[in-house]
């Protein structure tokens, strides 16, 4: 075993390089070219009690899932307010929440949403939600981008 350690070490070296490249790769995110499910447009807005007006929405809008029990949602809230102030339409989907808590939460933190839909989980299921908060950027009825977890300034920079 001692005689020729050279060969093993060449192998080791090659493997080491391969392994290094592998470990350095950032996990790639697949783009979802999916349509917005129809369930969303069949449900009624919480405050106005009407269906969502697709004419008013326009081509580009954002869908944001949130809940009053979710702490990271609070963190991204100011960014949503900023988006709204720039005239971007956001549909808020309140995911599996207590009604009173939800009303209090909106009153306390402000309402950045054009429409708010309360969801018992079926919309989340159709959208493929993994957890709140989760944000979808929609263009021409197709999901362009999906961000899991709270939004950061870098995520929405281009839209401001």
């Amino acid at each position, binding site marked *: *075993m001692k005689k020729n350690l050279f*060969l*093993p070490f060449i*192998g080791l070296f090659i*493997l*080491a390089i391969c*392994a*290094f490249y*592998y*470990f350095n790769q950032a996990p790639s995110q697949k783009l979802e070219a999916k349509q917005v499910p129809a369930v969303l447009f069949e449900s009624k807005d919480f405050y106005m009690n009407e269906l969502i007006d697709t004419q008013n929405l326009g081509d580009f809008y954002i869908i944001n899932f949130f809940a009053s029990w979710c702490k990271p949602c609070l963190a991204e809230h100011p960014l949503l307010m900023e988006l709204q102030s720039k005239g971007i339409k956001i549909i808020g989907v309140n995911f599996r929440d207590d009604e009173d808590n939800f009303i209090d939460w909106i009153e306390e933190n402000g309402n950045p949403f054009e429409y708010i839909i309360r969801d018992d989980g079926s919309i989340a299921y159709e959208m493929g939600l993994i957890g709140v908060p989760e944000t979808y950027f929609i263009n021409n009825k197709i999901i362009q981008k999906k961000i899991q977890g709270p939004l950061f300034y870098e995520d929405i920079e281009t839209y401001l």
Partner: protein
Amino acid sequence: MIFYTGWSKKIFTSDRAFLNLIYVISASPFLVLVIGFAISDYTVLNIFQNSYIDDPIFYKVTSAWGSHEGSILLWIFLINIYGIFFLKTNNNKEIHKQIIFISSLFILYLLISSNPFQKIELDTTLEGLGLNPILQHLLFIIHPPTLFLGYIGLIIPFVLASHILISKNFSEDLFNQMLFWSKLSWFFLTFGIVLGSYWAYSELGWGGWWFWDPVENISLIPWLLNTALIHSLQVSIKSNQLKLWSLNLALYSFIAAVFGTFLVRSNLIVSVHSFATDPLRGLFLIMIIAYLFIVTLRLNIKSVNYFNQDTFKIMSKETFLLLNNIFFIAAALTVLVGTIYPLFSEIIYNSSVSIGAPYYNFAFNLLMAPIILLMAFAPQIKWGEHKRKNNQTFYIIAISIAITAIVFYLQENIFFALSVFITIPLFIKSFLVFFKKISKDEGFFAQWLAHLSIGLFIVAAVYTEQFDYEKNITFEKGDSSEIVFDEGTSLLLENIKDSDLSNHQKISVDLIVVEKNSKYSLSPSKNIYQPSGQVTNEVSTANRYLDQYYATISMIESDKVSINLVYKPFINLLWISSILLVFSIFLSIIKRK
């Protein structure tokens, strides 16, 4: 001074004492860490992160191997402990050099990528961050060390095999030593896997005992290879054949064990038992594995000409043991492929796949079924050539088919019927040969018991999985009526208790399962641990002969509580047969000495 030189001379003139000294020195850092944990020395980062000042001393000490660094240190400690014991039976310097070399590779790994004694500044809170509460369990104290003893036990067959291949000394004595050490490792592996399985069953609260989780798979691969090794070593010793085959199995078993550790520690594969990750760790462990692998390949290339004359008749014990090997190795490779397939799929096809129970239930059981059938007849086949023919086999299969048909008619479950079909021949045959052989053959009883307990295990496992019954039951506040669980069985809420213990708050629910003639009390609880605030579910079980009621709290609110109650038939038979299996291998080890 004179005393000193005299002493050192004594040490260095004796190889044995010198080797012992090296082993003791390499093993000692782990003991230092254990002491550090015991006295809660929070100036060390590792201890600070993994222990909590109010934990009982028992858990403080066991936190030593709860972390990544600690467990690698334990790994090194055990390699050296094995070295010390191996020195008692074999003091060949060349072999010990290899053990020390491998041990030092791991020490190097620890020094470079994960120093367990890293110091921190004192100005942080001095309470410690606490061990993951899910690990605060009596079984967890013995599970990892036992499993590690099993993994590392494979190092002795590894170094012995490579020594045999280098020195070309194929004496029976060396093979016998290999058999002893691989049996010892097999004993610890089996025991460790059973403990881990029981821990998952009784602590995780999911009602399952095997999840085909990557970490479980990884422990199963060396177990399967080691099982194959033990069987092929019999051929090597008794009939002087399949020697290269056995040696290779020994080499690959240890590689599989190290590879498993690599997969878990580097977090390449997501699992319940995740540890913090660091690319450097994975890189270094990959280098260790590559080194072992290349050594193995080189040894093979050099010695391949020495054995290719293995010849034996088709109706012989050798053939059947080889068949056992084929299936066990195929099973090990299947589990390996299933475990790393998602990785390849991610890299090559850029799509993520999850491989879990449905796949393994198909693939693994497919490979195990023929083995179990063979297990009934193979032990009675003669070495060399089996000439006597009789119709017994035919009758046994016929009886088995008849019983299977009856079982299928009664239970209407194809899987249980199949498991009956493959195990009945084993039971019949075991019964028939027991009285004939028990007085004649020394090692017979251990082997008989091992095979029989595997048969029992399969019946129990399939029965539990196929006929368990689960129901979620919700009680409103002040609800004192019984709620129906199953036909003739109902559940009654007694009271809800809230108590404070040293490091956690405990909310327990007292329940009574009411049957026609008997009552079983259960008290599952939820524990809220300090300082992390993590909540764990404590399972409560009640035995009903071989069956068990298994209760957990699925949700607790101010006005209602829901209980998840599972009826697990035959689950106790499963644990009993596992313990019998461990016991049988223990018997076969002490018989040899």
